[in-house]
């Protein structure tokens, strides 16, 4: 099956700093989504982005499908950005997503 690798596995930032999280995948995909899991375990969908660039406030994402990677940018990080960020992909029609193992982000004061 498709392999999804995320880097870095762990990241510690001071509040106000910017960061880039990367997601590499091993095959062509027709769906890519980014999620944030907060420290209480809640999973929030951030972006559906199979290709191109999207922005939502301080977050933006870019997927280069032909090169099989996606990037999640967090600008002016806040403590509420802490948690784990997952990317997930699928190649079929039923949204059977395959998840990466995540990037754990800690934002400190």
């Amino acid at each position, binding site marked *: 099956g498709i392999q999804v690798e995320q880097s870095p596995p762990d990241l510690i930032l001071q509040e106000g700093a910017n960061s880039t999280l990367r997601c590499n995948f091993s095959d062509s995909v027709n769906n890519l989504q980014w999620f944030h899991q907060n420290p209480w375990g809640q999973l929030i969908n951030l972006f*559906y982005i199979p290709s191109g660039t999207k922005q939502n406030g301080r977050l933006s994402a870019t997927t280069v499908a032909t090169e099989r990677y996606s990037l999640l940018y967090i600008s002016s990080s806040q403590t509420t950005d802490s948690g784990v960020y997952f990317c997930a992909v699928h190649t079929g029609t039923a949204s*059977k997503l395959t998840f990466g193992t995540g990037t754990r982000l800690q934002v400190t004061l």
Partner: protein
Amino acid sequence: DAGITQSPRHKVTETGTPVTLRCHQTENHRYMYWYRQDPGHGLRLIHYSYGVKDTDKGEVSDGYSVSRSKTEDFLLTLESATSSQTSVYFCAISRGSGNTIYFGEGSWLTVV
């Protein structure tokens, strides 16, 4: 809010007992999913449903069964719970362009 409710939210059970987790949605979505989350593995798909009585296996389906007799409810059953099934279980639905996934709040299951 995708209108997803999971129950129970927390459960401790003994090895060998049957356990059923319920996922209820209020928005009539066709696709529903059960995932489990474990340290070092991220989220892995157990089973999914694409309609009433239409279900299929995911990548970690052994030891689990599912049923969907109504659009709004998707049940996950552990016929005989084992310690390896101690996990956090998430139900999800997909909707909108790109079948965007939305998760419930999770069910913490401990098998002792």
